């Protein structure tokens, strides 16, 4: 994992949950929540947990207004890019509108230290073919002025996920991977779904932090 990991993708692909998981597992300094699209289930809603883990949250909500849906981002979101020893995970909002925010940082993004990973769940409608994912990558790159450096397989149907679900996602992602010469960097599976076979990249069990257990 490079010093800075940016997670982009389609809405509802699992970016926020993966951002929290990666940030906690790697013990980074900052989690930057750049999601100005969603009103609920944003990584900023677990600020207390992150604090316990010693991870500082950077986000744009005005003081005392966690539940506002103002499209504001913090000026501090620039800091990790220009601080040579600061490790951070960036959680972007969904789709091209979410990626567009990155335009303002293109002058400070140093690819030696920053990688941009695309989170994909092929069980989301319209994302079940390599062509659709290739088109998504092109739209995200166009909107954000960024280049996707790798893929994360987060294919799931939540509690209904099986190993087969993940394997199907990987089959689709492999075509994308071959076409663009992009590595599959991680495969995430719900900790409740046991894994018995090999999957591409680092295989990680995902803890869900954002949704209550009864949901």
């Amino acid at each position, binding site marked *: 994992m490079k010093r800075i990991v940016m997670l982009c993708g389609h809405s509802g692909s699992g970016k926020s949950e993966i951002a929290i998981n990666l940030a906690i597992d790697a013990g980074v300094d900052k989690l930057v929540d750049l999601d100005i699209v969603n009103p609920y289930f944003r990584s900023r809603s677990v600020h207390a947990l992150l604090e316990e883990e010693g991870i500082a949250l950077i986000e744009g909500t005005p003081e005392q207004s966690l539940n506002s849906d103002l499209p504001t981002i913090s000026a501090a979101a620039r800091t990790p890019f220009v601080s040579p020893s600061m490790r951070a995970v960036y959680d972007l909002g969904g789709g091209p509108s979410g990626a567009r925010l990155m335009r303002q940082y293109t002058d400070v993004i140093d690819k030696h230290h920053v990688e941009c990973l695309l989170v994909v769940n092929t*069980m989301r409608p319209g994302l079940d073919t390599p062509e659709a994912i290739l088109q998504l990558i092109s739209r995200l790159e166009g909107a954000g002025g960024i280049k996707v450096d790798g893929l994360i397989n987060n294919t799931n149907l939540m509690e209904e996920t099986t190993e087969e679900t993940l394997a199907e996602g990987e089959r689709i992602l492999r075509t994308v991977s071959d076409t663009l010469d992009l590595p599959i960097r991680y495969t995430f599976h719900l900790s409740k779904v046991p894994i018995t076979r090999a999957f591409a990249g680092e295989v990680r069990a995902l803890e869900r932090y954002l949704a209550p257990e009864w949901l």
Partner: protein
Amino acid sequence: MSRVLMKGNEAMALAAIKGGCDAFFGYPITPQNEIPEYLSEHMAKEDRVFVQAESEVAAINMVYGAGGAGARVLTSSSSPGIALKQEGISYLAGSEVPCVIINVMRGGPGLGGIQPSQADYNQITRGGGNGDYHLLSYAPENLQEAVDLIKQSFDKADAYRNPVMIAVDGLLGQMMEPVDLERTPDSKQRERKEWATDGDAGRRGKANTIVSLHLDPNKLEEHNLALKEKYDRMVENEQRYERLETEDAELVFIAYGSTARIARSAVESLREEGYKVGMIRPITLWPFPENAFKKLPDTVHTLLTLEMSLGQMHQDVKIVNQGRYHLDLYARTGGVVPEPEEFIEKAKAILKKEDAA
């Protein structure tokens, strides 16, 4: 399509397309924005109509116009936006123009907040607009049920020539869950709407008119009585509910929507500990499912209403059950979503008190 993972608002929007929605008119408001966002892309692909209106008031009047012309029309909003639409909804009901309205509820009153709430219960069931009218209203508990009900709601709206409201809270709009869009059939073949102002007066030999204005009080009363006959038929035929573990229950929860989801989890935990707890889950808010309370077993001594509003649905539970059971209420509001533990604790306190008595 088999099972896919969708966000509530997206799934509801897609279900509307599959229910035969010809046109959408709306205005943005959190937490339902993914509905117009989704439809803005997909209605165009399906060669159907999508308009982002200049306001909620404009949107509902566009619904009135397109619905009057015989189209299957949808609008969506959230609580304060629905309040703005009430005048138009009253006109639609008064003129017997069918439409479907999705209300993704948030906290109130006024602008309130953007977190989940059920405090529109009165607004939905008591007629937010003027006059003697009712909306057929469905309150799904999960996304699959929301999809199934929305697909069916356009048929219901047409059959009764009445607006149908889908009432969910923000949580259902924003959460993700696997759904099967094909579990129920898509909307059936449509009949021509012979009452519509569709420009086909030549064929019919007469011009249709759509009005809610009847200046002769006798005529207006007659119109109201005809509407009432229709509402009576809805009460007779459209009540929907689920009864969960009520067969030997001592305490029965009454809860709908997300609250029922939380209550379901509480019932499971309480049953595991040996407590005789069940649940009645209204699926229609109007007509309120009175039938669900008939033939409850003699073991039942208490009904506990659980809602994310301060006793709005509890009023209906009281109307149906006054004098028959102990009636109690546990309510959170303002966007606070209760935890199952809160219901469990309340249930145990009631059962303990009853044992001691």
